C-alpha cells in the first residue's frame, strides 16, 4: 500500500522557564492511504504537538512530514484538524459553518450542505446557531464542515473526550458509519484505549515525554467491533500493560 503520510525522524522541543523542554524525541511514522491510525499516550506526552506538526500548524526542529511524497510545511484543506474544544464558528449558523471551507465555484453549496448535514445527522438544525446545539451535535457539525471539503486526511485530536460518556460512545459508532461511506485516511489522537481499539486499524503507543514510539499494535478485526470480545479484551490488556497498568 502506498504511504499517504510519512513523518520522518520528527524532533521538537519548546522553550520553557527551566530551559528547553524536549517534547518529541525522534518519531518515524508511515500511514497508508485509507488507513485509520490511533496514537495513544499518557497525557502531556506530546501527542497533540505531533498532530499539529503532521497537520502543518507547527514545525519540527528536525525531520519532515510528507504527504503523497511531497513535503508539507503549512496547513491545507487536504488535511483537516478536528480538535477537542472544537472550532465551529459560534457566530455563523450551522449552514454557514458547513459551507465555510468551500472556496471554489461550487455548483450548489446548499445541496452539498444538505447532503453532509444528512450524513452526520444534522438535518433540521442548519439554520440554528452553534450555541443552540448540544456537545454531540456540535461535533457532528464540525465533522460535516470538514468532510464537505473532501479532505484526504482527517486529523482528530481527542475529538470525543469533551463529550459525556454516552454521547462519546454514540459518536464513536457514528464516526465508523460515516467513514464507511466516505473513505478517508484518519489520524486519531486519544488517551482512551477502548476508543482506539474500536476505531483504528493500527494503534501506536507513545512513551512519556519526550515522546518516542513505544509499541505498535495492529487491530485486524471487522467492524462493528464488540469490546466484550475476548480478542479485544486481550488487546486492551496488552496496550494497558505498555502504560504499566
Amino acid at each position, binding site marked *: 500500500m502506498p504511504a499517504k503520510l510519512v513523518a520522518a525522524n520528527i524532533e521538537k522541543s519548546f522553550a520553557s522557564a527551566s530551559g528547553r523542554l524536549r517534547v518529541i524525541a525522534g518519531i518515524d511514522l508511515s500511514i497508508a492511504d485509507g488507513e485509520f491510525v490511533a496514537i495513544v499516550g499518557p497525557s502531556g506526552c506530546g501527542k497533540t504537538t505531533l498532530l499539529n506538526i503532521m497537520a502543518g500548524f507547527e514545525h519540527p526542529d528536525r525531520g519532515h512530514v510528507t504527504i503523497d511524497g511531497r513535503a508539507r510545511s503549512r496547513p491545507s484543506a487536504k488535511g*483537516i484538524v478536528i480538535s477537542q474544544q472544537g472550532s465551529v*464558528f459560534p457566530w455563523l449558523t450551522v449552514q454557514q459553518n458547513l459551507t465555510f471551507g468551500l472556496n471554489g465555484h461550487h455548483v450548489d453549496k446548499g445541496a452539498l450542505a444538505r447532503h453532509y448535514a444528512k450524513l452526520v445527522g444534522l438535518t433540521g438544525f442548519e439554520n440554528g*446557531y452553534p450555541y443552540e446545539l448540544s456537545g454531540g451535535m456540535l461535533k457532528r457539525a464540525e465533522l460535516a464542515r470538514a468532510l464537505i471539503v473532501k479532505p484526504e486526511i482527517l486529523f482528530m485530536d481527542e475529538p470525543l473526550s469533551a463529550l459525556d460518556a454516552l454521547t462519546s460512545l454514540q459518536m464513536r459508532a457514528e464516526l465508523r458509519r460515516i467513514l464507511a461511506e466516505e473513505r478517508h485516511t484518519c489520524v486519531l489522537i486519544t488517551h482512551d484505549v477502548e476508543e482506539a481499539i474500536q476505531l483504528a486499524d493500527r494503534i501506536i503507543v507513545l512513551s512519556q515525554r519526550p515522546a518516542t514510539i513505544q509499541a505498535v499494535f495492529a487491530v485486524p478485526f471487522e467492524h462493528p467491533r464488540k469490546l466484550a470480545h475476548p480478542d479485544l479484551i486481550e488487546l486492551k490488556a496488552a496496550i494497558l500493560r505498555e502504560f504499566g497498568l
Partner: protein
Amino acid sequence: MPSKLKQVVAPLAIVTLIVAAWWIAVLATNTPIFPTPLQVATAALGLVREGTLWDHVGASLFRVGAGFLLAIAVGIPLGLLMGWVRGAFIALNPIVQILRPISPIAWIPLAILWFGVGDVSPIFLIFLASVFPTIVQTAAGVHTIDRRYLWAAENFGVSRYKLFIQVVIPAVLPQIIVGSRISLGVAWLVVVAAEMIALHSGLGYLIIDSRNAGNRYDLVVAGMVMIGITGLLLDSTMRRLERLPIVRWRYAR
C-alpha cells in the same frame, strides 16, 4: 411576572427614597438657594412650555452623536489595524496611550484656538473623549480571538477577505459593541465640559448659563437630571445591540 414587576418596582423605590431624602434635607436645613424636587420639576416644566428644553437636549444629542460617530468611524478601523498588524500596534500604541489620559477639558483652549466657539469645538472634544475606548477595545478584541478559530480558517485555506469578513470581524464584534457602549457613555459624560464653549444651546450650556445668569439652581439640577435620564436611554439602546443574533454567542451561557 413577579420578577418583571420587581425590575420596575425596586429601582423606582430607590429613586423615590433618594428624592424623599433630598426633599427632607432641603426643608430641614432651610437653605435659601438649593431647590426642592418640586422646584426642579417646575423649572423643567417651564422649559418644556417655552420649548427650549428639547432644543437643549437636541443640540447636545447632535453634538454627542456627531462626535461619537466620528470616533466609531476612526476608532474601529484603527483598532482592527492595530490588533491585526503587529507593526501597526508597535508604531501606534504609545501615541494612543499618551493621548488617552489627557482630559478633554485640557483640550478646550486648543479647541477654541483651532475651531472657534461653535458646534465644531464640542464635537471635537467629544470625539477625543470617545475615540480611545473604541480603539483600545477593538484592538484588544482582535488580540484575544481564540487561536482555534484562526487555525480552523487557515486549515480551510480561505482567502484573506473571507478570513476578515467571516472570522475576524464577527469574532471581535462583541468587543466592538462593548467599546461603543463605553465610548457613547464617555461622550455623553463630557457633554457638559464640551458645551462650556458652546454658544447658546445644549444641556451643558443650560447648566453653566443657569449658574452664571442668576444662580438658577433649579435649572442647574433640572439640566443634570435630563443628562442622567438621556444617558440611561442611550445606554439601554446600545444594550439592545448585544441581543443581535450574530453576537448572541458571546452572551449566551
